[in-house]
């Protein structure tokens, strides 16, 4: 019988990756708001990056599946909350680093500002499309290294 602690659950949640960005965990994305332990039940409050994100059910399943592997955990409840809202400022420094490694620029300072190119770090880009392959990403083009790249939207 393992000892179920909040700290341990946060560690374990590092194993659950964003289904659309497999190098970054849901913790590094800043999506986990609170974890409560009630005996053998773990309650996780999560903040969706976008209200209409179609990956929410998958994230819920992955979180509960992973936590249930832990000794002593018999039940997991995942709730999505909007207070406080998820903002791109919640992505951790580690999350920023891993996003870049995956080829996605971290969010710019403002929705109208240009993100830095994840390949050559140049700030001289242009907007290709404010909408990309997922709700939370936009597409840019780097004028220095001539690469198109994606960036997390600043929200």
């Amino acid at each position: 019988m393992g000892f179920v602690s909040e700290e341990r659950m946060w560690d374990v949640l590092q194993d659950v990756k964003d289904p659309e960005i497999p190098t970054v965990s849901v913790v590094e994305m800043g999506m986990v708001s609170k974890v409560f332990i009630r005996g053998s039940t773990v309650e996780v409050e999560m903040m969706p990056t976008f209200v209409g994100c179609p990956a929410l059910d998958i994230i819920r399943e992955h979180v509960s599946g992973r936590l249930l592997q832990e000794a002593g955990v018999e039940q997991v409840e995942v709730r999505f909350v909007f207070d406080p809202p998820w903002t791109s400022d919640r992505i951790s420094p580690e999350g920023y680093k891993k996003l870049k490694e995956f080829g996605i620029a971290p969010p710019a300072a403002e929705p109208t500002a240009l993100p830095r190119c994840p390949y050559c770090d140049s700030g001289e880009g242009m907007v290709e499309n404010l909408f990309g392959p997922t709700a939370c990403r936009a597409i840019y083009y780097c004028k220095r290294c001539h690469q198109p790249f994606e960036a997390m939207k600043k929200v």
Partner: protein
Amino acid sequence: MKFENAAQAKQNERVLTILKDLLFQLADDELTLGHRDSEWLGLCPDIEGDVAFSSIAQDEVGHAVFFFDLLHELGEEDPDSLAFNRSSKARRNGVLLERGNGDWAYSVARHYFYDLFEDLRLQAIADSSYLPLAHGAAKIRREEVYHLMHMHLWFTRLGKAGGEAKERLEKAVQSIWPELGGLLSFGLHEQELLKHGIISFDTHELRRRWTSRMKAAFSEAGLMWPGEIPEPRMDGRKGEHSEELDELLSTMTEVYRMDPAANW
């Protein structure tokens, strides 16, 4: 007085009624326009437009689900039934949003007018006394910034281009204008919504802010201002709708109706 959750709102029958009416306006606007947006897939002038309209459709339908969820918590049916299983008379969307997509200029102008309205409506509920609504509004407004930027770009681009693009845009504005008043509204109960702090300003103030910001965009696009916003002949906020909504619903619910109990 603040209403922290559904249970508290349910204790005041009048508040419950007017709150639900507002939520149906929000949900039905988003679902109807989201469906129209999705119809552009594969037909936009460029691939970026296709990706943009699909992504915007996903956002709008997602927002509709959020508002339907709030209605469900307040005792209405589940979100799928609310989206797919209500008659057109029960719908509260502005008539403008149910109209067919027309040409690119019509779709761009309508969406831009809607996005600016939505930005203001979300401001009006940002400090709502119904806290679950206030929280959702804050989140949704951050996403809508991108819709507004995209549609502003296209609206002014078509106007500045002159020639056929500008002519079509002018024609689109003319056909939208008579139906605009039915969209820029909080419906039948706005004074009570104000009194209970569910919204923080009324239709009059909303239209004043909308007009002031939209006039700047018209001037940037080189378009003439069409004048006062007239009251609509058909008011979607009262459940009055065109045949185009019935056609839209028939298409949108085709799969659902085959087996309403199916688990997708």
